[in-house]
């Protein structure tokens, strides 16, 4: 009767979208991302005015751009995190195809901005770096392939995805951009590992790396010098690394004070690759530890949530995304403290850069989508053991 008078109560198949999103999303990781973005803006205020002055813009030109791109990135992230894993996968496959084509077109249409590496498309108001977008999309596609290969009578997805990874590495090496290339290889390796690589192969690869490194060290003077220079305790104070190390020392535990740092004037990459040095100098070890803690939070929480994940695709793609994100941050910081040889790599969400920010938004958005809480059949596991 009531229905006849007032019409039927609208029915929903499940919870409303946003409340469900809020309930299932990993709030810790989400907060960490927002904090990192905030820290990035804060450091940009300190690190980018020298560059802006050099390029003849107003002091906070790059901060404004960073804020704009950051907003775009956060909305992208939000949009992606709303999607179901299946939608994520479909979008990723389409996006991957597009960015792969874009990457292949780089030698023809790209510009190098006088930096000696053709990595960008110039769009007038800004530039776009396809490899940044390719990376997370590739991870999802490769995760899908490896997961499929584990199905009974599935396609040989491991070989296909490895071939794809090698092809991308080749394209990136041609630019040349060995940093991104190694990240792509690393992400594939992590997924392969979690996807069930045999320990025999893994041990063989580790052995080959050690033997190859030793051979290269003995036979190539250039390589040996690089390694010796990296291993030696002395660091030339006039190199980028020297400035970075000195900035960290100057900063000490609590920093020299906001805006008081000097390293940003000496380092050409202070706003990108060496932003951690600026952070260490002006805000001290405290902020650096906070940053490291935030990255570790995102990576470790994601891995922890993925441990309970039942779906192989979600598990693999999520692992690849989380590990790539964490490793990129780690490599960047390790270079600044000389744990690793110099390698140009940005600090995700903190370093300045439009492509890197938005690609980071996509990466984290997809990661959040994949790590959302969903039923994992725990009750079924308990109740129905199907005779096993």
């Amino acid at each position, binding site marked *: 009767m009531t229905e006849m008078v007032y019409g039927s109560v609208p029915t929903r198949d499940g919870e409303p979208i946003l409340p469900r999103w809020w309930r299932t999303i990993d709030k810790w990781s989400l907060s960490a991302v927002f904090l990192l973005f905030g820290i990035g803006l804060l450091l940009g205020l300190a690190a980018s005015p020298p560059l802006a002055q050099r390029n003849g813009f107003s002091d906070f030109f790059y901060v404004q751009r960073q804020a704009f791109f950051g907003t775009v990135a956060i909305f992208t992230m939000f949009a992606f995190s709303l999607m179901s894993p299946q939608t994520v996968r479909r979008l990723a496959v389409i996006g991957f195809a597009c960015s792969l084509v874009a990457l292949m077109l780089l030698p023809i249409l790209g510009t190098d901005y006088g930096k000696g590496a053709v990595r960008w498309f110039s769009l007038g108001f800004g530039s776009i770096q396809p490899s940044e977008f390719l990376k997370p999309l590739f991870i999802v596609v490769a995760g899908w392939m490896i997961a499929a290969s584990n199905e009974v009578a599935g396609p040989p997805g491991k070989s296909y995805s490895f071939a794809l990874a090698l092809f991308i590495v080749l394209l990136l090496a041609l630019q040349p951009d060995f940093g991104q290339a190694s990240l792509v290889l690393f992400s594939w390796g992590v997924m392969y590992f979690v996807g069930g690589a045999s320990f025999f192969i893994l041990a063989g690869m580790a052995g080959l790396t050690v033997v190859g490194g030793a051979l290269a060290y003995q036979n190539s003077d250039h390589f040996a010098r690089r390694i010796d220079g990296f291993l030696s305790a002395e660091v030339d104070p006039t190199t980028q690394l020297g400035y970075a190390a000195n900035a960290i020392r100057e900063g000490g535990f609590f920093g020299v004070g906001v805006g008081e740092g000097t390293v940003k004037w000496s380092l050409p990459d202070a706003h990108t690759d060496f932003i951690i040095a600026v952070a260490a100098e002006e805000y001290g070890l405290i902020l650096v530890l906070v940053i490291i803690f935030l990255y570790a939070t995102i990576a470790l929480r994601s891995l922890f949530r993925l*441990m309970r994940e039942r779906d192989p695709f979600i598990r693999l793609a999520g692992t690849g995304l989380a590990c790539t994100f964490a490793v990129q941050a780690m490599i960047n910081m390790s270079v600044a403290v000389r744990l690793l040889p110099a390698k140009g790599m940005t600090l995700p969400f903190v370093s300045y850069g439009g492509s890197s920010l938005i690609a980071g938004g996509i990466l984290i958005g997809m990661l959040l989508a994949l790590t959302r809480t969903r039923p994992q059949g725990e009750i079924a596991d308990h109740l129905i053991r199907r005779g096993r």
Partner: protein
Amino acid sequence: MTRTPLRPLARILAARRAGENPDIIERQNLAERHEAERDSARARAEGRLLVLGVVFLCAFTMVSLKMSMIAGSDPVEPRAAASGAQILATRADITDRNGRILATNLTTHALYAQPPLMIEPERAARELVKIFPDLQEERLLRQFTGGRKFIWIKRRISPEQQQAVFDIGDPGLLFGPREMRLYPNGQVAAHVLGGAGFGREGVSSAEVIGVAGLEKAMDAELRDPGRGDVPLALSLDLTVQAAVERILEGGMRLMNAKGAAAVLMDINTGEIVSIASLPNFDPNDRPQPLTTGDPGDSPLFNRAVQGVYELGSTYKIFAVAQGIEERLVSRSTMVDIQGPLRWGKHKIRDFRNYGKALSVEDVIVKSSNIGTARIAQMIGTERQQAFLGDLGLLETTPVELIEARGARPLVPKNWSEISTMTISYGHGISASPLHLASAYATLLNGGLKVEPTLLKKDYPVPGPRIISEDTSRQAREMLRQVVTRGTASFGEVAGYRVGGKTGTADKPKSTGGYYEDKVIATFASVFPVDDPQYVLVVTLDEPVETSGQEPRRTAGWTAVPVAAEVIRRVAPLLGLAPSLSLDVETGTPTGITLARN
């Protein structure tokens, strides 16, 4: 085509017999296998994700720890000085053989301006001109107010000047540390040290590079970072060098010469104890090279090394020694010296007529051109060339001076018999005083080859034998005779038994031919003759001795007294004790007790 086996075969066969659809059983089986596979993969992945998580945790912890270690260590203070110290270490000091400093480094500052940081360019320019009167105010102001971002104002300033610039108080005036090369002894050994200048230049440091002399020749060694702070020890003795330069300067003035050179060499090792060339300069403030005229007149010109002169009769001993070595003559062989000696259209004459014949010894003592030429005829061209080559008189010297590499002896293009004859008494062949000193050392030390060097040798390295010890001894005795009863009688220094040979050569005109009244007077000497220790070559350029009725230019009147004074003053410094024995030839005691001077 691969056939997929029907699984589980037993149930399917049973179902087929019962007429049921076996596909359902197969699907069910597939789903079960799939579930099982997924569960095992999940269990495996769980473990591996845990491993990954631990690895990442460790890695992040390591980065944090390393970061804390760096942050906890003391900052390197101040950075600019640290890089300055590095540069200081990259150019080694130069010392003499006893470790006394000849060249060292000093930290000064360079002054530069960054006009964008300047507050009052007008006042800064005005005040700067007060401090540095050689700057021009308008020019400075133009630079400060122009579009330039960076201007060098002064390359090197003193601490007082730096303070004065500080007091201007303009933030756009900045200082960069500068290493500069300092030669604390001023003009002493100027030609050896040469000088240094700035190479590549940055704000916080500049390369110091050698521009001449030893500093340039040994530049790579001095800048070798692996050297540490080990100074480069030279064979020079600073005291001896200073004495030689003073005496040479006095001698040059007395003899009205326009230039002079001296080389004092250890006869056994070839170490140059002193090498001087006058006029000289201050390597701290190197003069500009001459743009017009003869570069040989510049004070930068090293007469002892670069000056390639005809050295005259000093060469005679080579011909005579070779004649004795080849057993063509002995000291007492009589040589026909009736002149003039004709060869083609050429005539060879002696300075005076010494009679019809002289013994070989007297050919040296009286310095007979004709007698030497006759001995050279006996030797022949080929053997003469080989012998002079063995003595190092036909090639550049290997001494560690950049100038030595360009000082190649001049020899006749067509070495005919007449060349052989004139070369035997030092005409038609030119070499530097350093060449002559090395050749004398080789000839007189017992016959072992000596290469001149400016670096201190820790132990003597015997060279190949050039002539026999006996010939060497006879040559020394003949040279002694030259001093006791020959042309170099002023060369006697009580107690030091000097032997030597004079040489007076007319200077060649640049247009061809020879000057009548311009000579190069040389005295090449060895002391003490019975136990040879040092070779000394003194060369005067255009000397005139005017105390007599007519001007005298021969070496015996000019170069010899200067060389004798050098030996008299330097021999005690070298640690040579004067001999108190009777002189065998003259029968008079030559002890220091009888010396009056």
